[in-house]
């Protein structure tokens, strides 16, 4: 299958005071379209950094990242923002819902960046909330939802624009076992039923089991399978 993500010779360092801390060292890999990839590794191994680079919210020091045919490293900040709005759905560990907006309004947020009409946006939001099983909670604010429900709303927000790629950073890290299972089942369904390409960072081996490909990172280097 044609790769949807192509990472080539990517390196990234952070500076703390005057010390350079290498995070990723000459990483290269590909992810075929429709795959469910789990990135695993100990804390500080660089997996979240790699996820951020693929999602276009961070930039590598060296190397190229091509996602869905676009060299995202070459994009300027403004174009990169538009690219993210179109191609990437984000799922965060702590859900990152906007507390002053209802579930409906949170899911609608990414759609405000499209040219859809209000009626079309409503259809998209309702579809996304139906997929995650929370259509009846769309008028609720995040604080009126459980952790698992919040994460499902976050997933609805991630899929509402029908993005090319879903990136999930420890999506079950803040959930109890039952809620975590629900979320993982939902991600699996999105991958199998809706053919979404998913890149997930996780510490949890049970979560990684749902993925088709598991890649391990250690000290900024991708381990051989």
């Amino acid at each position: 299958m044609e790769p949807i993500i192509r990472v080539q010779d990517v390196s990234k360092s952070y500076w703390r005071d005057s010390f350079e801390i290498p995070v990723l060292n000459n990483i290269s890999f590909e992810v075929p379209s429709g795959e469910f990839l789990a990135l695993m590794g100990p804390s500080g191994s660089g997996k979240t950094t790699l996820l951020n680079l693929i999602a276009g919210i961070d930039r590598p020091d060296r190397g190229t990242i091509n996602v869905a045919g676009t060299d995202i490293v070459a994009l300027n900040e403004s174009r990169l923002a538009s690219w993210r709005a179109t191609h990437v759905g984000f799922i965060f560990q702590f859900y990152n819902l906007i507390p002053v907006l209802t579930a409906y309004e949170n899911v609608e947020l990414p759609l405000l960046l499209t040219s859809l009409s209000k009626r079309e946006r409503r259809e998209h939001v309702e579809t996304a909330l139906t997929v995650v099983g929370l259509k009846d909670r769309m008028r609720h604010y995040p604080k009126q939802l459980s952790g698992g429900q919040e994460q499902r709303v976050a997933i609805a927000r991630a899929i509402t624009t029908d993005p090319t790629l879903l990136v999930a950073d420890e999506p079950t890290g803040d959930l109890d076992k039952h809620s975590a299972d629900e979320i993982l089942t939902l991600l699996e369904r999105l991958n199998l039923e809706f053919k979404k390409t998913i890149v997930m960072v996780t510490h949890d081996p049970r979560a990684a089991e749902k993925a088709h490909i598991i890649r391990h990172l250690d000290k900024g280097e991708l381990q051989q399978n």
Partner: protein
Amino acid sequence: MKIPLKYTIRNLGTRRLTTGITVLGIALVVFVFSAVLMMAYGVQKTLIATGSDENVLVARKAANGEISSIIDRQTANVILTLPHIAKTPEGKPISSGEPVVIINLNKLTGGLSNVTVRGVSQQVFTLRPHVKLKEGRMFNWGSRELITGVAIEKRFAGSKIGEVVRFAGDNWTIVGLFDAGGSGFDSEMWGDADQLLDAFNRSAYSTITFRLDQPEVFQEFKAAFDKEPRLQQFEPKIERRYFEEQSELMAGFISILGIFITVIFSAGSTIGAMITMYAAVANRTVEVGTLRALGFRRRSVLAAFLTESLLLSLIGGLIGLFFASFLQFFTISTLNFGSFSELAFSFALSPTIVSSSLLFALLMGLLGGFLPSVRAARLNIVNALRSS
């Protein structure tokens, strides 16, 4: 695409205490700011209402006000021979040669203050139809009697009908009360011009005011006036314009002093708004990171936070203005620099004051919110998301 306005509005409601305190601070400054402007405008409005567009007032060119102007009777007669001066059916010019003097009276609140006494001529009510006798009667011509303006009666002891005021070595009985419709004449006492000249041993009026047969012929009249060699030391002005100029010094002083003080106050409110907005940015760092990750641009974040700050200040401005608007029900008096005498006036609100006060509030919001909004817009997405 903009971050929705409901995000901004609802966030204002989440920090009720800090938002409330900031709004209160801005409201207080706007209250003072608009009160000062309303005071200056009140003075201006009162004095401008004193004059009429249909009347012409002649004063000595070098005089700063009516008090320092002198027009002898011969000159007054020359003026009244000029063309375009309106006449009564009996053929008398509709004019009033007026000596203006200042006397001291005791204020009801204690202390002495200056009061203008204006000598008027028999055509005065035709000349100034907005002045109406409210109580009592008109003074008798040729007697030492006075009628008093409503603002004087309310503020000065011994100024009621039947009471006697002593000045220029004589007793003057108050026989009537007049209402000049909130104009500067309400703060005056009027008597027979000839009696006043006699009592003060003067032979010259301070000013002469007369009506033109048509208001639009003023330039023509002025041309004739300027050609007359005996009138070179005098200057005719539309009466309203004359009093408008008289108000400028006083209104300007109040405005400048008041605005200077409120600008200093506003620094405090602006810093308050800035602290509130910095706190808002700090509390919502993750939200900003999330919005940016979703694809909202820096300028959308900047606009959202700046709008929040502007809304905060607009609410403060509206509250301040709302309370300031009640000042319109108050009348105060102060010493008018133009006439050196007490002038009663009401605070007056105008569309310009409303818009300037709201603009002033928005300026505080803009200045207070700009740096925090820039900080929010410049947040690094990864660092912002990490702060969760």
